[in-house]
């Protein structure tokens, strides 16, 4: 009954005309971003953040969330129709989706993706609504030691799920934490690592780092090999799946939703991992496993449900604990702070309209996506054909103006350029920027919790293992770290990323 009241409150918030409009704008932009290869959700959200400052906080967050799950959806459309995954999470969809399209069954493939995503989105919405409050209630009992350990776990998980060398991923995390400390120390007022530069007194803005590393860095990377994007568009005939298709879709959608929801909560690249895991599990258990890779509808339905479920459940740690689990939710944390909301377990009680409004808006957004995708398919396909050489100068323009407008200073534009070059350099050296951005945002928080925990324990560092919840969290972090060393897991980890980057 309480849940119902909450959802009604959420509906009242989300269904205002302005919020519906911005939810629509969010999923629309998100789909566009998902369709366009070379422009990811992280860079887009960073670019649009300054625009959302003029909106009320709920509206801004609804729109930003819409961009994120919209991009997951848009990526699958192009995977199926033209074999181009716009997003990493939809890479596996190309395997069977594009085969179906080649056989003239693009319609059923798109329908499987839409139905799967909508179902998964609905389930994930209820999961957030159901698990959010109890989780937040537990988290309210957390002391500084628990929060510190929780952040350690989050960072370790992002390291484990990162691509490439484990050692370098840890290095990137530590580097990110250090960069996050630049600026005025809240306790002593000392200006740290600011080199006497006035603009650095407030620290480096996370949007600046994100735009540099994910926006500029990505552009430089894409300019390396501008292969001709020969797009062969298949005719879409027969939009509706047959009765047989429906029957074959049910189980994969259910399994995909479960796997995706569970993996989405994990910090790191939850929705990517979810779609890969769902596909490989489906390939093992399906009756039609022989058809996989040759256009099996199960191979579309399962990963599509999983990535959408994962995209949404990744909001659980963000909304209940205030801990971001991927670069996108890290940006949302930043957005909340800018809007004067301290993300954490108290958000549910102090800002119920914001919390429930956002959750209900996700469901509405999913509905928009289904409605949006069918009639507009032609437009999305035409969008893929925008040549990259005309696209990226535009991205740069939006990054430049956006980053300037944050504090009205050109210094941030210079910093963005620096981080762009740095991001490119690190990617050349095989270091992923995602764990770094996460650590960058968590750095000051972690220091604060460490200080408080040590103050309360009178300088006893064992406090982190003496308190049961904190010890459990640290134990999980150690387990996660060790799992990489187990040959079987590390082999799977490599395989996933080899497929993923292919």
């Amino acid at each position: 009954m309480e849940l119902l009241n909450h959802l009604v409150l959420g509906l009242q918030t989300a269904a205002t005309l302005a919020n519906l409009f911005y939810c629509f704008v969010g999923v629309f932009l998100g789909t566009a971003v998902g369709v366009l290869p070379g422009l990811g959700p992280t860079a887009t959200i960073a670019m649009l953040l300054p625009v959302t400052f003029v909106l009320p906080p709920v509206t801004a967050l609804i729109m930003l969330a819409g961009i994120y799950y919209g991009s997951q959806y848009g990526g699958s459309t192009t995977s199926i129709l033209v074999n181009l995954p716009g997003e990493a999470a939809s890479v596996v969809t190309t395997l069977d989706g594009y085969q179906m399209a080649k056989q003239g069954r693009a319609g059923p493939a798109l329908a499987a993706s839409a139905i799967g995503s909508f179902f998964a989105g609905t389930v994930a919405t209820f999961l957030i609504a159901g698990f959010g409050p109890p989780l937040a209630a537990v988290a309210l009992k957390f002391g500084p030691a628990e929060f510190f350990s929780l952040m350690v776990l989050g960072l370790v998980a992002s390291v484990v799920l990162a691509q490439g060398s484990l050692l370098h991923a840890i290095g990137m995390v530590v580097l990110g934490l250090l960069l996050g400390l630049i600026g005025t120390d809240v306790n002593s007022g000392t200006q740290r690592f600011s080199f006497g530069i006035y603009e650095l007194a407030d620290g480096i803005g996370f949007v600046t780092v994100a735009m540099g590393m994910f926006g500029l860095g990505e552009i430089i990377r894409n300019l390396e090999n501008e292969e001709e994007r020969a797009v062969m568009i298949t005719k879409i005939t027969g939009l509706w799946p047959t009765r047989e298709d429906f029957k074959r879709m049910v189980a994969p959608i259910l399994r995909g939703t479960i796997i995706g929801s569970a993996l989405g909560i994990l910090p790191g690249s939850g929705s990517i991992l979810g779609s890969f895991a769902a596909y490989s599990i489906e390939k093992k258990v399906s009756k039609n496993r022989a058809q996989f890779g040759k256009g099996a509808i199960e191979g579309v339905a399962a990963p599509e449900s999983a990535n959408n479920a994962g995209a949404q459940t990744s909001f659980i740690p963000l909304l209940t604990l205030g801990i971001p689990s991927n670069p996108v939710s890290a940006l949302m944390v930043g957005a909340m702070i800018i809007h004067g909301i301290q993300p954490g377990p108290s958000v549910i009680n102090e800002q119920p309209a914001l919390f429930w409004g956002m959750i209900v808006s996700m469901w509405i957004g999913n509905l928009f996506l289904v409605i949006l995708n069918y009639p507009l398919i032609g437009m999305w396909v035409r969008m893929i054909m925008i040549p990259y050489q005309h696209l990226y100068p535009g991205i740069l323009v939006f990054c430049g103006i956006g980053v300037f407008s944050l504090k009205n200073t050109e210094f941030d534009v210079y910093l963005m350029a620096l981080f762009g070059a740095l991001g490119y350099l690190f990617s050349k050296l095989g270091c992923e920027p995602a764990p770094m951005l996460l650590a960058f945002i968590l750095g000051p928080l972690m220091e604060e919790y460490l200080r408080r925990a040590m103050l309360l324990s009178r300088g006893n560092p064992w406090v982190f293992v003496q308190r049961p919840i904190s010890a459990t969290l640290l134990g999980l972090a150690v387990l996660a770290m060790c799992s990489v060393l187990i040959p079987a897991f590390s082999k799977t980890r490599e395989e996933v990323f080899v497929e993923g980057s292919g």
Partner: protein
Amino acid sequence: MIRNAKDFWTGLIYVFFGSSAILIGREYGMGTAIKMGPAYFPTILGGLLVGIGAISVIRSFIIPGTPIAAFAFKGLTLVTVSALVFGFLVRGAGLAVALPLLVIISAYASTRFRWHPTLLLAAGLTVFCALVFLKGLGIPLPVIGPWFGG
């Protein structure tokens, strides 16, 4: 002999950042474990980073790895420079100068660069941004800057 160039250079970068953090941090108060000063956490992190960097450098002599792929210097330079030029000009010269330059310099990095569409793109984006960001969202930037009497 360096067997893994990626490990070697990444390691050096980590050692550089880590040791800088420790050295610069010496100017700030260390404090105690109970009452941590501003240098405490950065020093721990710096130490960790130096350690990770050192392992990486040592490893680069033992375990072979893939070589670093060629840098796209043209893209790297032009994209970075275009952003710097934009930042340098936007307040003084105005959006109508800084934005087209950003577009043209960065577009020049593409192997498929052609003047005609690039100029059109620059003009279109300038008008769009002047209307949406400057007029619409009220970002305090001049279209024609004070250097040109705007």
